[in-house]
């Protein structure tokens, strides 16, 4: 538990174990968790009262350190970093790293900032190889804070923010979960424009795809379909690795080529799934 003092309130908060360390501010309008005492701006804080029995006495050293915290509740050296957007509701500053989708202090959903990319929303590095298993957990955590169904008691403005943020998080989740869409998104972030209209006439590639699709169509039973499916999946994986290499070397032409192949294999897999 921490406490700090500003002009009006002495606030009690808990430090979460993220680098952004939002501190809970008790203002007049935002809800106070039940386990913390409700503070009135004008009444003296129970913290200062010597008869306070339910709070541990504040160490003077700790108090001095905490008084160094600026109004927004962050240590000064952190708050000097760039792009500190603040909450429209309580004014507390957003995290210095990571996406500011909902205020850590008052819980208010923030308007969509489209400069925040999908990787930032999930707190992941902007690269092809990610921990796909982590995606679902982070996704659900965000939806607990952002989903429109959970903000039905809030203002129209906030409901609107929630709808947009929630939709954006869903897009981010879907894009990052599927390797091909993740690859295409990475290329997009690098400003590599893939000309969708252009036709390709690489005979080897097309012949292979033609034969693959024909095999799927002519497959007589599920066994043969599964066989084809595993072959196609292997090829998809191998081209996925090729993309990873090409992208890390910034060889964007090869990277685009890889995504095109991946698209064809994915298409074949879709057809197999339909047939199964």
């Amino acid at each position, binding site marked *: 538990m921490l406490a700090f003092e500003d002009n009006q309130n002495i606030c009690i908060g808990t430090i979460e174990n993220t680098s952004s360390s939002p501190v809970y501010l008790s203002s007049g309008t935002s809800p106070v968790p039940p386990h913390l005492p409700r503070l009135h701006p004008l009444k003296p804080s129970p913290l200062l009262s010597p008869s306070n029995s339910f709070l541990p006495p504040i160490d003077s050293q700790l108090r001095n350190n905490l008084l160094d915290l600026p109004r927004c509740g962050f240590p000064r050296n952190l708050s000097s970093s760039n792009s500190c957007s603040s909450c429209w509701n309580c004014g507390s500053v957003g995290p210095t790293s990571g996406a500011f989708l909902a205020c850590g202090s008052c819980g208010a959903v923030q308007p969509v900032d489209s400069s925040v990319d999908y990787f930032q929303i999930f707190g992941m590095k902007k690269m092809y190889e990610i921990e796909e298993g982590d995606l679902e957990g982070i996704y659900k955590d965000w939806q607990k804070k952002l989903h429109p169904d959970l903000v039905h008691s809030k203002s129209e403005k906030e409901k609107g923010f929630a709808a947009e943020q929630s939709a954006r998080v869903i897009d981010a989740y879907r894009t990052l979960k599927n390797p091909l869409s993740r690859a295409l998104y990475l290329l997009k972030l690098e400003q590599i424009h*893939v000309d*969708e*209209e*252009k*036709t*390709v*006439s690489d005979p080897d590639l097309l*012949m292979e795809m033609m034969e693959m699709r*024909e095999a799927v169509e002519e497959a007589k039973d599920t066994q043969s379909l599964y066989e084809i499916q595993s072959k196609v999946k292997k090829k998809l994986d191998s081209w996925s690795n090729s993309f990873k290499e090409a992208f890390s070397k910034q060889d964007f032409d090869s990277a685009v080529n890889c995504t095109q192949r991946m*698209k064809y294999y994915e298409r074949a897999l879709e057809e197999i799934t339909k047939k199964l």
Partner: protein
Amino acid sequence: MLRLALKRSLRLGPAVSDTPSAAMVASRGYHERVVDHYNNPRNVGSFDKEDPNVGTGLVGAPACGDVMKLQIKVDEDSGKIVDACFKTFGCGSAIASSSVATEWVKGKQMEEVLTIKNTEIAKHLSLPPVKLHCSMLAEDAIKAAVKDYELKKAKAAPKQE
């Protein structure tokens, strides 16, 4: 009437499912001609690739993973296309575009078919803007087939002399 069909087809949804029906026209807005070509495809099939009178055009659209094969059978003496067939893996619009292409090239001279424009195919099928690349694919397939035939002819010619 064309405008009405265009309006309807502008509500075009994603790629066609396996079971097209009258409902498709009403709810998704595919033009009647596209549905017709999908349900009653003309000229689906394959010619022998090795046949010297056959030109094979194989093209693909990487954005949607479509593959289109268009083959022409050319009469050696007159240079006229006597038969054509196609095989397309893709959406309804792509299938319809290639089907239309095979119909249009039959009975025409090779030089003539090179002037077939994707915009004509698109107009004929009332394709919405998002599906224009399918007609482009068909145009490219025709050109590729003609090119392939001419390459074959050029390779074969020295042997005959």
